[in-house]
């Protein structure tokens, strides 16, 4: 396997179908579950219903251990009947919240289906509250509603809401690199060391760990997406003059190398210097993946749509672990952002954008895959039918990007299979 193969960026050779029917994917509110841990002094206030509150606590692992940095302003019938003024109500709830959590520096008002259907103008509310609470607390808004967003798109909208608040970088300074998409802190630190090793030392991450540590951007900013679901954020960054470095996503040895290499090209780093900075990591990643490959090679995988990570994952499983790809379902297919990954998929791959869950279950049963990647609602029933599943939400809650995690990522797929063989004994 050569980790540096670059094939033409085309997706013309795949079978791509769009499906419209019942979806079995969380809404964008779910992103709050990881974002609230990532940005340590931010708070996410969903303006929604009891359903939204219940979704959040159910997705966050049913119970809270430490007090979370998210809450719901639950709309009630007084609000709907127009008996209570929405602005006053929101002001009251925000005041109550800030009294309780004085350490909050950045407050997101997160729109939900109910707030959008009744046309609550959260952007106006955010501006008004920002004025009132400035300079201590900045208030931004975005939509995490299920009528506008699926699962990871909540992060996209959140980051896109931050972009206009990023300070302007000086025009004459050296170009800086911005890595976009929430990553585990440990992964960020590894990436930072790798970039420093090749001589790129002006590296920032979005989202930042602290709300006031906002990276400056401008026309000299080059950005790399670390997650594939960030279309709106990429657009907002481009509107600020920043330029995207096209690359496959940093999953697996090959993906990470190509991702890093794309940055190296953009920053004119010589190949010797690049190799010196990355060869140790690459070797470790290849070694770790090779150790797991025998457990997965030749096995067939079927993806239900969930996080939009499906295509880079399929690329990794097929090219680095020798797995066969059955259907690759994804909630949305951003062809431009995924061009490099799509080009690395075996020609003729079956891609399905959108979902019709019952029809897809029928196809899954007919395809008899060895591993099914799916959401929490489907996993146990499929296991009960005899399938081996990998819950996709774990792929979002686990550090999987970069060299040092390539083996862990492979292991996530191997473990359910290994477990089956043990239990059969």
């Amino acid at each position, binding site marked *: 396997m050569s980790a540096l193969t670059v094939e033409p960026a085309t997706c013309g050779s795949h079978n791509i179908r769009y499906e419209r029917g019942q*979806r079995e994917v969380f809404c964008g509110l779910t992103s709050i579950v990881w974002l609230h841990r990532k940005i340590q002094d931010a708070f996410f206030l969903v303006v929604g219903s009891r*359903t939204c509150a219940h979704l959040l*606590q*159910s*997705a966050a692992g049913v119970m809270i251990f430490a007090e979370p940095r998210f809450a719901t302003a639950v709309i009630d*019938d007084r609000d709907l009947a127009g008996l209570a003024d929405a602005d006053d109500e929101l002001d009251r709830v925000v005041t109550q919240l800030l009294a309780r959590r004085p350490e909050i520096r950045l407050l997101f008002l997160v729109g939900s*289906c109910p707030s959008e259907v009744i046309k609550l103008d959260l952007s106006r509310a955010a501006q008004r509250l920002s004025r009132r609470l400035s300079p201590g607390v900045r208030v931004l808004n975005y939509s995490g509603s299920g*009528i506008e967003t699926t699962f990871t798109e909540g992060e996209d909208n959140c980051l896109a809401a931050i972009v206009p608040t990023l300070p302007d970088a000086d025009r004459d300074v050296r170009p800086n690199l911005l890595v976009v998409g929430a990553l585990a802190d440990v992964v960020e630190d590894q990436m930072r060391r790798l970039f420093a090793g090749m001589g790129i030392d002006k590296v920032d991450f979005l989202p930042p760990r602290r709300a006031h540590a906002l990276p400056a951007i401008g026309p000299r900013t080059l950005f790399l997406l670390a997650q594939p679901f960030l279309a709106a954020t990429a657009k907002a960054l481009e509107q600020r003059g920043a330029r995207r470095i096209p690359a496959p996503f940093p999953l697996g040895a090959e993906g990470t190398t190509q991702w890093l290499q794309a940055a190296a090209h953009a920053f004119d780093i010589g190949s010797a210097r690049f190799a010196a900075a990355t060869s140790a990591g690459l070797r470790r990643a290849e070694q770790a993946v090779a150790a797991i490959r025998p457990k997965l090679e030749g096995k067939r995988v079927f993806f239900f749509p969930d996080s939009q990570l499906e295509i880079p994952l399929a690329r990794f499983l097929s090219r680095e672990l020798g797995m066969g790809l059955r259907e690759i379902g994804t909630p949305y297919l951003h062809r431009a952002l995924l061009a490099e990954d799509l080009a690395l998929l075996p020609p003729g791959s079956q891609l399905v954008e959108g979902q019709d869950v019952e029809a897809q279950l029928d196809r899954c049963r007919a395809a008899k895959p060895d591993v099914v990647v799916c959401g929490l609602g489907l996993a146990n029933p499929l296991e009960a039918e005899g399938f081996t599943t990998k819950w996709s939400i774990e792929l979002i809650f686990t550090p999987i990007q970069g060299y040092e995690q390539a083996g862990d990522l492979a292991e996530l797929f191997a473990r359910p299979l290994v477990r089956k063989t043990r239990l059969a004994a």
Partner: protein
Amino acid sequence: MKLTLWTYEGPPHVGAMRVAASLTDVHYVLHAPQGDTYADLLFTMIERTTQRPPVTYTTFQARDLGGDTAELFKDSVRSTYERFKPAAMLVGASCTAELIQDDPGGLARALGLPIPVIPLELPSYQRKENWGASETFYQLVRGLCAPRPTTRMTKVGQPTCNILGPTSLGFRHRDDVGEIRRLLESAGATVNVVAPLGASAADIARLPDADFNVVLYPETGLQAAQWLHRTFGQPFTRTVPIGLGATDAFLAEVATLTGKAVEPTAAGSRASWYARSVDSTYLTGKRVFIFGDATHAIAAARIATRELGFSVVGLGTYAREFAREVRTAAGDLGLEALITDDYLEVEAKITELQPELVLGTQMERHVAKRLGIPCAVISAPIHVQDFPARYSPQAGLEGANVIFDTWVHPLMMGLEEHLLGMFREDFEFADGARPSHLPAAPATKPIAAGPAPAARPSAPITVHWTDIAEKELQKVPFFVRGKARRNTETFAKERGLETITIETLYDAKAHFAR
């Protein structure tokens, strides 16, 4: 708007899902956006059901709103019927669909399906999960039980009954049903139908055949039982058989309905004997705080006081629909019930009362853990741990045994507690020492350190402890030290003392001796 950090109950359509998922051949078509499909995981991941709940969501999107969401709903009903061929269908709206007012009931009726279609109107912005389950079950019973003369089908001397209320995602409902079925059979009554858990649409239609109804969980079953009473003259039981006393009272009630004499059972119970055995004397007067749904909170208060000899210091529920019943139970104990769905209020109350045992939901378990107080879970909201692999009922005789074990297990064993009290300075009895049969706790905070600041009653402390009194206080076992400190300070303040000496400490101890 209400600031909500965490909620005891989901929205009412989740209650409807619990009823649909309890039944074997009824499907629920829910007009809802895609995110609402999260509710499936409650069943597949928490209850670990082997099948998805029988729910089809329309998953309309913003772009459908301008167009025809009503058409989308009709398509979903049609294709759901084709695919699943259910015996009956429930149709309704989630919170978002309620706002777009598509009238799921009318739309579904217009399709003329050859099965009963029951429309649900569950006001999402006023009501909650248990109400939704109760209303759904009631509508289903109304919709499926055809009017008929009120004569019973059963033969004289062979009384039959239904068990009403158990649902999917109910706290130990699965095992309670087995226990109560056996109990009823031992009392000479045959169980006609258990519903909704495990029933088919045809079973629901057979409910009026029975002589009487057993309302196992009023939260979900009472409304339907009242309707069956009005419509078919079926009487129903009032006592929930959780705890030994309640089980006997329940059996006595059943006896009046069947006309057959029954023997009281509590006397022969193992839990009853254990409670009377000498090593249970250390349970006497343990100060207990109770919070949960109404059924389990009321039952727990009765068991705690009459069957274990505890002192209940606080009793409350999140179930506003049953606030009256809980207030009465609290009043009987000389307490004022805490009726709230805000867990922070519950946390503040626990912090203030400093009980020695908390009986609550999973949320109170977390609160108690933070406060270093032993805790047992007695009620939903449900957690994966509330579906143990083993048989673990709460109701009936075996339920009483399970409860005895579950509540007593987190406490110190009798002699162990004395040794801890006597030899405070043994280095192995460091603060936070836990009962030896439980795993070591990761650095349990002493009670006095308290939880999140905002939840604490902020009484500024103006009295001062002398070093020597403070040292003496440290000899009090950690699990009562917070209480001792508070009592002593209250005692000092009431007497206008600014300094607490060893004398003050022991004066206070004598003053508060119970």
